[in-house]
C-alpha cells in the first residue's frame, strides 16, 4: 500500500548534508510508490537545486531567516505545515544531531512513533519496521512503528543516495509557518571548528583514524595524507585528542563521535573498548598496528601487522595510483 512521505532536508553552507540525500532513498522505500516530497527550511540556492534534483517528487521551501538558528520551535510548525499540505504519513530525516532533536519534537507534536539512527527500513501492513544499532553498536534492535504516523531519522551511509535527476522537481514556497510568539533564548555567538579539509567525520563514507602508535603529533600527517588520497575524513583515538595532538572534535569513541562509514582504517590504534563502541558498526574495518595482539584486530576485517611509518606512505602511494588509473 503506497503512502506519501515527507523528507526534511538539512542544509549546510554548500548544499545539503549528504545523509539528507540518503533520506530520500529511505523515503522511497517507505512510500512504496507514493509521493516523496521534500521540505527545505533556510537552505541556499545550491541546496534547493541539489534537493529538487535528488529524487523527490516535489519540494517545499521555506526561506524565513529564523530557520538558520536550527531550533525545534521554529522548524516543527513549518514541517507540520508541509506534512499537512502533502498529506504525508511518514517523515524521514537525517539522523544528525539536529535531525534527532527534530525527531523527538515531531514525535510529540505530530503524535507519531519515532526512531533514530535507522539503518534498515521495511514497510508492512502492520507498520514500518526499522533497525538501528543500540548499546554502543554492540547489538541491533528492530522496532515496529505502528501507524498512522511515523518519524524516521536515518543513519548516514546506511542508504545510498538516489542518482541526481536531470530534471528538477517542482518547487513551491511554503507559506510562512503559523506566527510563533517571540521565542525565549537566542544564539549569541559562534566558534567555527578549525577549518578541516575533506568530509565531515560523522557522515563520511570513509574514515582514517590515527592513534598513539603514531608516537608524536608531527607524524599525524601520515594519516591525513592517506585520508586525502581516499577522500576520507580524519579521526583520532582518545589518546591522541587527550594528548592535544588533535582537537576533541576528531575523537572517535564513546566520549567522542560515533561513526559508521563503509570503510574505517585504524592506524596505530590498539582498540580500547572506549574507541571500539564508536566505530564497530563500520561496514569494513582495516587495522594497521605493530602489535599482532592488539584488540583492534579482533573486530577488524583486514589486519596488517608492521611498521606503520613504512606501511602508510606505501599505502598512500598505492591508493593514489589505483585512483588515478580508475
Amino acid at each position: 500500500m503506497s503512502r506519501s512521505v515527507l523528507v526534511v532536508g538539512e542544509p549546510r553552507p554548500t548544499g545539503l548534508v549528504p545523509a539528507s540525500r540518503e533520506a530520500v532513498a529511505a523515503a522511497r522505500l517507505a512510500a512504496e510508490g507514493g509521493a516523496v516530497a521534500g521540505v527545505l527550511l533556510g537552505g541556499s540556492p545550491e541546496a534547493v537545486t541539489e534537493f529538487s534534483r535528488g529524487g523527490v517528487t516535489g519540494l517545499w521551501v521555506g526561506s524565513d531567516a529564523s530557520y538558520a538558528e536550527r531550533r525545534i520551535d521554529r522548524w516543527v510548525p513549518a514541517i507540520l505545515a508541509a506534512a499537512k499540505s502533502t498529506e504525508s504519513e511518514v517523515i524521514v530525516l537525517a539522523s544528525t544531531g539536529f535531525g534527532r532533536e527534530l525527531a523527538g519534537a515531531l514525535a510529540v507534536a505530530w503524535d507519531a512513533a519515532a526512531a533514530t539512527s535507522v539503518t534498515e527500513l521495511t514497510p508492512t501492513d502492520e507498520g514500518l519496521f526499522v533497525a538501528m544499532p543500540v548499546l554502543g553498536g554492540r547489538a541491533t534492535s528492530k522496532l515496529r512503528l505502528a501507524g498512522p504516523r511515523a518519524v524516521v531519522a536515518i543513519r548516514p551511509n546506511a542508504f545510498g543516495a538516489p542518482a541526481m535527476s536531470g530534471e528538477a522537481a517542482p518547487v513551491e514556497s511554503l507559506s510562512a509557518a503559523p506566527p510563533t510568539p517571540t521565542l525565549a533564548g537566542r544564539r549569541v555567538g559562534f566558534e567555527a571548528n578549525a577549518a578541516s579539509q575533506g568530509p565531515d567525520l560523522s557522515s563520511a563514507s570513509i574514515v582514517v583514524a590515527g592513534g598513539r602508535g603514531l608516537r608524536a603529533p608531527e607524524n599525524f600527517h601520515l594519516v591525513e595524507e592517506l585520508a586525502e588520497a581516499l577522500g576520507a575524513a580524519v579521526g583520532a583515538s582518545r589518546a591522541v585528542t587527550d594528548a592535544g595532538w588533535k582537537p576533541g572534535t576528531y575523537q572517535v569513541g564513546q566520549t567522542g563521535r560515533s561513526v559508521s562509514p563503509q570503510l574505517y582504517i585504524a592506524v596505530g590504534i590498539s582498540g580500547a573498548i572506549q574507541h571500539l563502541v564508536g566505530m564497530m558498526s563500520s561496514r569494513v574495518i582495516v587495522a594497521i598496528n605493530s602489535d599482532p595482539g592488539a584488540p583492534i584486530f579482533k573486530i577488524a576485517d583486514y589486519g596488517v601487522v608492521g611498521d606503520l611509518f613504512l606501511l602508510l606512505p606505501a599505502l598512500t602511494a598505492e591508493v593514489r595510483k589505483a585512483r588515478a588509473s580508475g
Partner: protein
Amino acid sequence: MEIVVCVKPVPDAETKLRPAPDGRTLDLEGAKFVLAGYDESAVEQALLLKDAVPGSTVRVVSFGPPGRTEEVLRAALALGCDTATLVESPPLAHSADVRSVARALAAAVKKLPHDLVLVGKQSGDSEAGMLPTALAQALGHPGFNGAVELKFDPTQKLFTFGRASEAGLERWECPGPVVLGLQQAGNDPRTAKLQNILKSRRATLDKVSLAELPTLDVAGATAEAFQLPPPRTGAKWIEYKTPEEAATKLVRLLKEEAKVFP
C-alpha cells in the same frame, strides 16, 4: 533556582549481552540497573549549578517499573538531589515509544517548580537521543540537545550554553524555563558518601500514579527483535615481504573483495 533532572534506569556495564527468551529485547533477567552515562552527567551538572547558586533545589524524576526506577532515584538522592519522584509506568515490556515517555515525564515535571529541566543527551541503552526535545515539546518550553558548558548568570537570570553543530560551536543564552539535553558536565561526576547512601535508602519517594498520567500510546513503537552481530572471526591477515606488497594486496582486497574502494 529550581532544577528538575530526568533520568532513566539502564542495565549496568556488566550485563551480559544476550537476547531475552522471546528474542525481542536485551535479556534483563538479573540485571542491575544504574544511573549512568549522560544521565549521570546531567545529575552532576544539576548539582554543580546548585553548588554555584545558593538556595537552589534539585528534584530528580524517573519513569519506569518501580524496582529499577527506585534504585536510580535513590542513587541520585545519595549524590545530593533534594527530592525524587517516581512516575509509575504502565506495563512496558516491549515499548520503545518516546512520546509516551515524554508525556509521562511532562505530567510529573508540570507539578514541580522548574527553571531548568536537565536530561542526558541520550540514554545508555537505546541511545535514541530524542527525549530532551520530545520533553520540551510536551512541556511547551524551548528545548535543545547536546548542550555543553552550561552556566547560569544570576544577575540576568540567563542560562548560557554551547551547542555543537557540524561546523562549530554555537553559543546560546536562554531564560528559564528551558529543557536541555546535556552532552557532558565537564568533570568527573562525584561519588556518593556512604552516610548519604544509607540515608537515601530510607528516603520517601514522591509518586505519580498511572491514574494521574495522560493516556499513553506505549504500543506505538515496540521492540520486535534484538540481535547480536555474528561473532567477528578476527582479521584476515595481509602477509607481505615489503610495505609496497602489503599496500598492493590491501588495495586489491578493498576493491575486489570488500568493494569499498572509492
